[in-house]
């Protein structure tokens, strides 16, 4: 059983923000009205965190993309009252929008604030309704959503693999962000597969996870900047 994980090399990542756009486009994420945005209700599945270290003028800016970390020991799934968010055997944390009752307990429980909530009915001009990605369903008002590691892509990839009876190749299943990162900073693959790039990178000396002390065991692994 594969275990999907993401490795983000902060040494390469320039912080261009393309992953955010790719993600929004791929997953039909609603774009809230400016007023909503001002109230802090913007929806990014992939967000960009910026940390300023050091004293002027020797400032180091640490900027890294933050998807859902798909923890191996997720705090969010434990508290869900209706099984709307859960961890499947491939280690993906699923969010089932039609099961969710919108209690937002999972958002509260997530130490990485990786989840976002549809405060209002998401709306688009009819024109933009043409260019929805048909593989991803639209969310409705009052449910929680989050990065899915583009699980809908996995469905197709699996199908291809099964139909010509083979394993899923390395780099065959890539989320939108990893696929279009201009700096090749985002790698994605199977942690169980010893040959996969991700496996090898995750064992590098630079590898670290966000807030490991919490014991959530994120499956998004960052590689420190080289100095």
């Amino acid at each position, binding site marked *: 059983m594969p275990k999907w994980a993401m490795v983000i090399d902060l040494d390469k990542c320039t912080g261009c923000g393309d992953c955010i756009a790719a993600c929004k486009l791929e997953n039909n994420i609603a774009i809230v009205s400016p007023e*909503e945005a001002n*109230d*802090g*209700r*913007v*929806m990014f599945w992939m*967000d960009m*965190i*910026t*940390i300023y270290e050091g004293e002027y003028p020797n400032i180091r800016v640490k900027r890294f993309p*933050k998807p859902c970390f798909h923890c191996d020991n997720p*705090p969010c799934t*434990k*508290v*869900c*009252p*209706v*099984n*709307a968010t859960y961890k499947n055997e491939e280690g993906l944390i699923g969010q089932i929008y039609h*099961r*969710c*009752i*919108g*209690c*937002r*307990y999972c*958002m*509260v*429980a997530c*130490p*990485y*604030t990786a989840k*976002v*909530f*549809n*405060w*209002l*009915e998401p709306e688009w001009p009819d024109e933009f309704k043409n260019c929805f990605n048909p593989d991803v369903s639209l969310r409705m*008002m*009052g*449910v*929680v959503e989050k990065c899915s590691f583009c699980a809908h892509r996995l469905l197709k990839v699996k199908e291809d693999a099964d139909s010509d009876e083979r394993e899923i190749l390395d780099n065959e299943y890539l989320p939108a962000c990893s696929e279009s990162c201009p700096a090749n900073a985002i790698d994605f693959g199977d942690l169980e597969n010893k040959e996969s790039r991700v496996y090898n990178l995750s064992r590098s000396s630079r590898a670290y996870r*966000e*807030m490991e002390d*919490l014991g*959530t065991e994120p499956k998004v692994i960052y590689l420190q900047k080289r100095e």
Partner: protein
Amino acid sequence: MPKKIQYENELDAPLFRPIYETGKGFYITVGILMLIILWALIMYITQIWFGLGVTGMNQTITWGFYIINFVFFIGISHAGTLISAILRLSRAEWRRPITRMAEVITAIVLAIGGLHPILDLGRPDRVLNIFTSGRLQSPLLWDVTSITAYFTASTVYLYLPMIPDIAKLRDKGGKLTWFYSFLSWGWQGTEHQKKVLNRAISILMIMVIPIAISVHTVISYIFSMTLQPGWHSTIFGPYFVVGAIFSGIAVLLILMIVSRKVFHLEDYLKKIHFQYLSTLLLIMALLWFYFTFSEFLTGIFGSEPHEMEIIHYKFTGPYALFFWGMLLLNFIIPVIILSIKRFKTITGILIASIAVVIGMWLERLNIVVPSLANPRMELPIGIYIPSLVEWSLFLGGIAVFILGFVLFSKFFPLISIWEIEEGREEGIKEVEERVHSYLPGKETGSK
């Protein structure tokens, strides 16, 4: 025009008066309350229609008024049953006029508080998912179960001791006789029935206490089960319980004082009752402060960065005003008033209790919001400004509570008549014996 019901010659006439004499005041109050509730209802409908977007919550601060009020109301609910149970257990004779009111508060407030999580749902239409596919692992489900248990228990606990009084009302006749006789379960006041009743009550009061404690512990679990700094602490259970009882007593005191004025129960609710209760309040205040102190002490002493962030935010951030306000209202004011004899008048107690109620609400606010406002990740600090809808629903909740209390006072005596009588008949003798039994020397009185 039904024939006038005779109660004036009764010994406890004042207790019957509110039931049989309806003044203009009653209708006005009910009317106003109804209006408020209607408004709240409209607001809730708008929320269902447009979604939770009409509240002031946002992606970082995802829990707001609804959860705050939920905790707050459930907290108040602890007044009654717990106190009356404890007093009953400890055979405190001064309990007799208090218990009934306390239990009423519990029953009503619990109903309101229990519904708050539903207000908070993004999709109330799917609430049934909890039954079809719930997960008992989720603290929310623990709440659902424990609150239902507590609710049933406390209603039963309110109802059983009321039966003799209902029977009294039934025997008075009048339009509602059928209603009372339905509720009175054919109470005749025979020895056997008394025995049954007393046994039932004594079992109940023993089991109600742990339930009550558990309920509030469980509510604190909602927070402490998460990893959020400022929440993830073991002290939360007792802390919440103390806070609950604290606010509960305050509300009880307020209601007692008010109904004393309104229903002219001066003869029943004597100064001594307030003295005793307010002393209890004072103790709780001190206890509460101790818990608050130790909570922050652990945080500050360990000074785990995220923890510190939030503590600092509470002390100096945009909500600092509310934090210090909380300390003032919950600790300084009540302690000053209640510990100085001169201030410890009825009005003084009233002021103190009101202060405590507000203070406890602020405490809930200070628990819920700041932790959410400072995400562990270096995201912009959120700000939460409750919207009109939230305020209205809060008001509505309070209105429902008052309405419930008023209506109850319309149909049932606010003070347990038979217990008073019992007090008159047996109480004194029984106490005397008991005191004797405490003292050295051979058993006297008891055969």
